[in-house]
């Protein structure tokens, strides 16, 4: 495990004009290079389609492989991961994917970004993070934790059980890019002109279930709608300019600490 000074590194990153703040993939011992936010984002899209069905959203659903912990059965370097993606592993459930080099690089970038180093959380103070969450960050205006706050956005009471620090930080700095596509806001207009907005909870061919902006569980029949849109953006602002690096580290620490009830 490579040890490095997270705060210092972040400071460097943030002061580099023109470079996205979300250069997050931490170089591991076996990691051969760093990756850009664009590569990670591109890789995430590919991962969700190609890899998630077997490996799961956190890359931990195949026995012996946990991408959050950087654990693999047969590979360690970036080139080896890329090679396994290209060639598959005969005799196992891992098929070959004939993807171009750039796509495989993006996938490796995303897989590396999943790795939980613990450093971001370690650099922050969860209690100060809670104060920011409930105060300056105004997060409770949209989110809910342990029965307090709004229902406009996702309830975060156990977010630390399903997301690592890197993913949480991406959500704070670049929310539009980091919101999981499954957690989309929707806008529906009925044939009588009523507009309904909210967070989609469930959908089938004929109906959609959502929690609307005022916290009501609503079920809509699609045949009653003249417009139904999945919004690809999020009303959540980026906190890149709103909070200091330390405050973001504190906030991430707090979110990581939210594990739900035991």
């Amino acid at each position, binding site marked *: 495990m490579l040890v490095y000074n997270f705060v210092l590194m972040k400071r460097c990153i943030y002061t580099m004009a023109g470079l996205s703040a979300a250069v997050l993939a931490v170089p591991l011992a076996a990691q051969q290079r760093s990756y850009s936010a664009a590569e990670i984002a591109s890789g995430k899209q590919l991962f969700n389609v190609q890899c998630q069905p077997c490996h799961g959203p956190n890359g931990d659903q195949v026995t012996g492989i946990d991408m959050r912990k950087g654990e693999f059965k047969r590979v360690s370097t970036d080139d080896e991961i890329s090679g396994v993606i290209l060639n598959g592993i005969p005799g196992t459930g891992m098929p070959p994917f004939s993807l171009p080099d750039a796509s495989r690089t993006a996938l490796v970038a995303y897989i590396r970004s999943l790795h939980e180093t613990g450093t971001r959380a370690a650099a922050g103070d969860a209690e100060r993070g809670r104060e920011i969450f409930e105060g300056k960050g105004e997060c409770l205006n949209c989110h*809910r934790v342990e029965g307090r706050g709004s229902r406009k956005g996702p*309830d975060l009471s*156990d977010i630390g059980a399903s997301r690592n620090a890197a993913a949480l930080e991406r959500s704070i700095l670049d929310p539009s890019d980091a919101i999981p596509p499954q957690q989309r806001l929707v806008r529906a207009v009925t044939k009588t002109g009523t507009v309904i907005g909210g967070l989609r909870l469930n959908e089938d061919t004929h109906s959609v279930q959502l929690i609307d902006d005022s916290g*009501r569980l609503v079920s809509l*029949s699609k045949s*009653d709608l003249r417009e139904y849109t999945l919004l690809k953006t999020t009303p959540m602002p980026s906190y890149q300019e709103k909070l200091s690096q330390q405050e973001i580290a504190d906030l991430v620490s707090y979110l990581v600490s939210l594990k739900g009830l035991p």
Partner: protein
Amino acid sequence: MKFLALIALAAGMLTAQVSSDRLLHPDREPQNWLTYSGSYSSQRYSLLDQITPQNVKNLELQWVFQARSLEKFETTPLVVDGVMYIVEAPNHVFALDAKTGRSFWDYDYRPSRDARPCCGSVNRGVAILGDTLFLGTLDARLIALDAKSGKPLWKTEVGDPKLGYTITHAPLVVKNKVIVGVAGGEYGIRGFIAAYDAATGKEAWKFYTIPGPGEPGHESWSADSWAHGGVPAWLTGSYDPELNLVYWGTGNPGPDFNGDKREGDNLYSDSAVALDADTGKIKWHFQFTPHDEYDYDAVQIPVLVDGTWKGTPRKMLMWANRNGYFYVLDRATGKFLSGAPFTKLNWSTGLDEAGRPMRSSSAEPNAQGVMIYPNLFGGTNWYSPSYSPRTHLFYIPSWQDSSMNLGKVAGDFSPGQRYMGGTIRPGGPPTRRGAENTPVENSNYGAVLAMDPATGQIKWQFKMTDLTASGVLTTASDLLFAGGREGYFYALDARTGAELWKQSLGGSEEAGPMTYRVGDKQYVTIAAGHALFTFALR
């Protein structure tokens, strides 16, 4: 279509928190089903009347919810402003759109492997207050859930599952408290009913169903038998806001079939107890089966009825008991008003003036075995009865002619282990039927009985070939809904018992039917087999 959209919106617009005041007045919102038994009086009677004896033949299936679990599906849903809350085994809660059965969210609590329920890893439902649901779990926890998201808010330990404590029933919310009892009467627990603060989960009061040293009733247990004497409380109680009393049924003393080491009446086993809702202090008790050796839990739904009794206004408590007798009590005092058998029984020769059963000397358990009517499952059991204030009849889902051959064996207590003191063999034709049912002349059978509480007479009987574990629902249009092991879901005429409609659901109904309305449509729902079925008029 516009109309449907408006209905959908209307369901959303009406959404408001379920205040304790709303729980007090379910008659103001008959479209909803806010508590396990439909109201604090637990009559399982609905004011909805769109479905009538005339049009019930037009009922058709609206949607089906298939459970993931293959356990018995015993849930009674709650419906709050178009959202239905159910629990499938063991502790998997779903919020469904009540019109379509589509899920808003689910919460899958995995109880500890230490849990050791006697009779199935089941759950019968949740309670609600505000925007919070309350779930009792198989490993004896009480969990509060956000009704909008299913996220858990707090979890409280009610009992130790290693010692046999478990929870299978829907809690009862009274004011700001959540009240639950425990199961575990086959494991030598010391039963209790306890209340928890709805906001925090902190224990507010605890009533032990077996009095401790120095408390009245403690003398009804010999030696130290009280300490592991069972007496669970594994079904939802009822509440009278005027008297501020909570009514709960209690279960068998342990060991179930051998009373030699627990001489005495074994209070408050097999009893109705009336508890102060704020403090849990006992106001009165009525013991149906003193010194029980037949497993005749008084774990039935206490049904509260206001009316006249022999010309005088009375607040009554009506109770069809597992021991085979139907009782009417004064619920302010616990005074016995009347009792009458509703099934074949031989363990008792009748009730005395105070309602105490006179024991039959030929029904004493012994090592050689003795034939007892009814069997341990009783004349009825936990299956919800119904009372219609229109017909003034009390509807009992009953077992007729069941018997057991009870052999007494030594019952030694060991923590967390079965503590039974007897062996049970069928007394006659079996109560468990296979996939092919071949009943004989004297087979036991299930029946919905219409009991006239004023006379103790059965006004009509709807007889089934197999037994029943289904609850009963009545409505303001004088319909009665019930099922049975054969999987038929019936609509009967509540006044005559005539069969008006039936639908095979392909699996035993082991839950209580309920009804609700979304928009302008009345729905009727029941769980059968491993699925929940919802009907409405076509």
